[in-house]
């Protein structure tokens, strides 16, 4: 059912730890699950030319991004024997130390959950049209590029 009704991936602002706890708790009734793999992206206070990143302001081509997320889900469910998968990515300003990406995969067996989680992370980085403006302490900025 997870597979058929994907929720929106893009959410406003940082992803709170309580949301992650709630997602985990929601899976305790699914007793065919033996392993969960979770990836969290957190905003780093990178130094660039003696200035320090304070936040990243995320924007996205939202309709296309949701379409891409849906395609990644479909591909993941056909590649991996996972029970469920959830992904959330922030839009708007996320401060250093806060969570901007939450990927959560579950399976009967650990290796499948872990591989699927990695697949999601790499695919999202490579294919989702999301853009990040790194904001420095003095409110100047530079545009982030995934390496």
């Amino acid at each position, binding site marked *: 059912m997870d597979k058929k009704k994907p929720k929106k991936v893009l959410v406003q602002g940082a992803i709170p730890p309580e949301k992650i706890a709630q997602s985990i708790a929601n899976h305790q009734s699914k007793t065919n699950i033996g392993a969960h793999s979770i990836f969290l*992206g957190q905003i780093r206070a990178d130094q660039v030319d003696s200035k320090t990143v304070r936040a*990243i302001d*995320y*924007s*996205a*081509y939202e*309709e*296309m*991004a949701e*379409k891409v997320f849906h395609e990644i889900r479909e591909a993941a469910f056909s590649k991996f024997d996972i029970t469920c998968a959830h992904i959330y*990515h922030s839009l708007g300003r996320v401060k250093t130390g806060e969570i*901007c*990406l939450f990927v959560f995969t579950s399976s009967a067996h650990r290796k499948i959950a872990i591989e699927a989680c990695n697949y999601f*992370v790499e695919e*999202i*980085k*490579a*294919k*989702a*049209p*999301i*853009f*990040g*403006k790194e904001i420095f302490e003095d409110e100047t900025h530079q*545009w*982030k*590029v*995934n390496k």
Partner: protein
Amino acid sequence: MKVSVKYFGIIAEAAGRDEEVLEVAWEISVNELKEQQVQKYKIPDAEAVQLAVNQNLNKEVELKEGDEVAFLPPFAGG
């Protein structure tokens, strides 16, 4: 014909706008449209810019009246 154009990230910053409707020549290619706008707005790092037509990155497509063309800078999700 008219196409609807969207700009994102550093490209929107360079263009000074998020979207606009452009009157373009029939049979203009995606690459020609890209070149035209890169020149017009002095879009930086043009090699890294990708265009999506109706949310697809496939560059081989021909533009049609009413298409949505998005100018995408490098992705930074995750």
